[in-house]
């Protein structure tokens, strides 16, 4: 392999093959099977499955974002739900504005504002009539919040659990703030009852499929970006920060800048995921900011396998698919299944599901691959044996 500028190639050739195959299946095959194949055919992908898969894809993006900051940089955030929800709110605000006067009260204002007797659009809603503005805000607002928060926290070298706990406090504070009706984001009900996106009716199957494809594209892009980062020199620096920040500092790197960059990027990715999530599930409300939700996001990554991008995505998909399946199959007992899985994964699969060594698939250790993504032994935490 030729190394240029300390960067490793993104993928080996077979990996690229698998990658394109997966993207092809997700972006082309599923939409075709849904739209073009007859409903009675066994190959038909049912309508309800498309937004559901779209939702998993958004969660997978969140998992990538968390993996980037936790798995690769060693900073556990319990507040990513905030970034996700802020992105969602930005998109939700656009969707609310695009309802126009078709709301319940036929006003140019969103229904909940009419209801609160507001006569004018608050200033922070300005601009959300435009899709491009909303899309930009969905990424910029979480990124800006993360930047300020991260700057405050990293500057004073808040690390480890301290950081985790204050991110939890942050998401809790935002949840309380958004729960308030007076803050102008719809209170507990949040934003819902969307009608159209970019003039396409939102409940049309073709719109849904388009949103799904957009999610596939976004996830692919985010994955490649993350892959690019972790395979670059920056990625190795991040791993070094994770494993011993002190030593990195002594070698002359300003770790604050690197941490801040990854942290902000991670938040922006979450915002993007949130923006794609909202039109597909049809509602955004403050319960997305519940501390429990953010904990769950971290758990997807842990279940799938930290410090492996594929693992993060698999984890998000797996946990949520389990949730979808067992809430119907065993509505009284699904919490047992979920809880037991979490415990089992921590006890027996410290590397997550992708760390499973399937019989027959003997893992051969490509040296450069391993070194770039993880240091063997203690993958995340500090020196305690």
């Amino acid at each position, binding site marked *: 392999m030729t190394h240029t500028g300390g960067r490793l190639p993104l993928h080996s050739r077979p990996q690229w093959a698998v990658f394109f195959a997966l993207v092809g299946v997700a972006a082309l095959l599923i939409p075709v099977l849904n739209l073009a194949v007859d409903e009675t055919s066994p190959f038909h992908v049912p309508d309800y499955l498309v937004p559901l898969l779209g939702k998993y894809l958004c969660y997978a993006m969140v998992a990538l974002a968390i993996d980037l900051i936790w798995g690769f940089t060693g900073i*556990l955030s319990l507040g990513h739900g905030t970034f996700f929800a802020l992105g969602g709110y930005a998109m939700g605000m656009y969707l609310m504005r695009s309802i126009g006067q078709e709301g319940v009260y036929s006003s140019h204002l969103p229904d909940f504002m009419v209801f609160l007797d507001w006569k004018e659009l608050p200033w922070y809603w300005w601009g959300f009539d435009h899709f491009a503005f909303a899309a930009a805000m969905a990424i910029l607002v979480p990124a800006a919040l993360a930047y300020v928060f991260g700057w405050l926290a990293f500057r004073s070298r808040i690390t480890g*659990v301290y950081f985790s706990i*204050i991110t*939890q406090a942050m998401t809790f*504070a935002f949840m309380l703030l958004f729960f308030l009706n007076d803050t102008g984001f719809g209170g507990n009900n949040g934003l819902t009852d969307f009608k159209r996106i970019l003039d396409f009716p939102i409940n049309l199957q073709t719109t849904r499929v388009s949103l799904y494809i957009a999610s596939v594209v976004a996830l692919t892009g985010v994955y490649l970006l993350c892959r690019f980062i972790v395979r670059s020199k920056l990625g190795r620096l991040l791993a070094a920060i994770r494993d011993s920040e002190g030593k990195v500092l002594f070698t002359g790197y300003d770790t604050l800048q690197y941490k801040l960059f990854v942290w902000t990027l991670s938040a922006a990715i979450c915002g993007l995921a949130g923006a794609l999530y909202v039109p597909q599930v049809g509602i955004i409300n403050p319960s997305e900011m519940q501390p429990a939700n953010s904990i769950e996001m971290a758990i997807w990554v*842990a279940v799938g396998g930290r410090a492996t991008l594929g693992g993060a995505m698999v984890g998000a998909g797996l946990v949520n698919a389990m949730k979808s399946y067992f809430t119907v199959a065993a509505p009284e007992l699904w*919490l047992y299944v979920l*809880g*037991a899985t979490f415990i089992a994964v921590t006890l027996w699969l410290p590397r997550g599901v992708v760390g499973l060594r399937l019989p027959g698939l003997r893992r051969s250790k490509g040296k450069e691959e391993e070194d770039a993504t993880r240091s063997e032994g*203690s993958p995340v935490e500090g020196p305690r044996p």
Partner: protein
Amino acid sequence: MRTILSSSLGGLARRFFVVLGILFILPAQGVAGEFEDALAGLGSKSRKQIKSSIQQLAHLEDPRALPALTALLEKRLRVDAEGRLYEVVEDSGELLRIPGGEVVASPPDSLRKPRINNAVRRVLGPAIAHLQLDSPDADVRRSAAEALPDRLSERMLPDVRAAAEREKDPQIRELLALALARADIQSGDSQRQLAAVELLGESGGRVAASILSTLLEQIDSEEGSEADPALRKAIESALARIEMRTDLIDMAGNLIYGLSLASVLLLVALGLGITFGLMKVINMAHGEMLMLGAYTTYSVQILFLQYMPGWIEAYMLAAVPCAFAVCGLVGMGLERGIIRHLYGRPLETLLATWGISLLLIQTVRLIFGAQNVEVANPDWLSGGFEILEGVVLPWSRVAIVLFASATVAAVWLLLQRTPLGLQVRAVTQNREMAACMGIATGRVDMWTFGLGSAIAGLGGVALSQIGNVGPEMGQAYIVDSFLVVVLGGVGKLAGTVTAALGIGVVNKLLEPLTGAVFGKILVLLFIVLFIQRRPQGIFALQGRAAES
């Protein structure tokens, strides 16, 4: 100290003799038939009838009606099929005839409880107070004076005035004088009005303020009439004085509320201060330990109800060690079974304990049902006392403050003054070194985690007295507990205590200014900024330990 709930009426027998005494001294008042009819009306099925009978009895001013009226208020009145009245004696369960008071040896079969509602209770309270004003017992008179309505009726006025004149006890006299002043203010007699305004300004509370401002409005609306400028000025100065006093009282009240909130936070967070603070286990199942403690309290209460109903009042005392033991055992089991495999990977304990918390919640839901369960306050924890006018400190809160202090003291003693505490500190400071010194670190871990969980269980006992007991209750406290521990400084119990106090008091001082939600948000913001200034919390560990 004044007990608010009139549950202090335990001296029933005493009052009974008092009434008997009065019976001998005073000849029966009014027309005999009228009294009997009104009394019998108390047992009516119609609440309207009961209400008018009470009013009539108050009007007759016959103290013989007192036992029946108090029995009615305290739900001890019974009626048999023929409409004869009885009262049940609280402790012995004996049945007494009304009027008369003879013990009924063989109770009739079908006894009915007259049902009263708010409308009845609203006339019943003043009626009893009216009749009790003449009681020879100072305590009875005091509670009567307290129970006087805000605005005395025409009919009661002369009686209250007479009572005030013959009253010896200065405290009761002041109460009566205030009640009279509230009435005098409306009298139109400017001399009396002035005196009343003066008195209310001196010692009146919010009720007085409200009456005074109504009067002021009246004066203002009748511009040009013979409104006395002196009166007007007196009212204004009285209002100002009352306001200053009540503002001070409010401040004091908020401090006290803050203290009590702080105790709750402390009890909730103390266990986490050990499992997370000392052991570095990110224990997401901490809330569920609180929940288990509360459910243990519930179970103990059920067992008491079933097997020793006579001792039900004492169930709380039994619940404390039970919750300690149950949660301690569960904690030790979890430590041995799961958590001990995760030392050195603190962030992974987050994942496992989250799983544990889901399991515990669902288990409790399957056993006890998804609904909340009822944990009753024992009588000695119900009610409260009024420290200042309008500021009531409930007994349950007092108990929690005391309980929290005792728990902190016990934990401190345990950690600082016992061999186990020494080992715990040794292991948390330097595991290898401790192991080299021959400490069985594994066992110490088990004990430490058990202790943390057990203390969380104690927190659960306390929470059961002020809030809900349900499967999800623990989730609500997770964020708060972690914040308290982190703000205080991980691994420092003194920090946990200080942080709880700080958050509690600040929260309560902010709440009146900003409302509950913004108060909380501001506190969170403040905490984040504070940690930013002092990343290791209020009480930072010094030296190398801080870096690890």
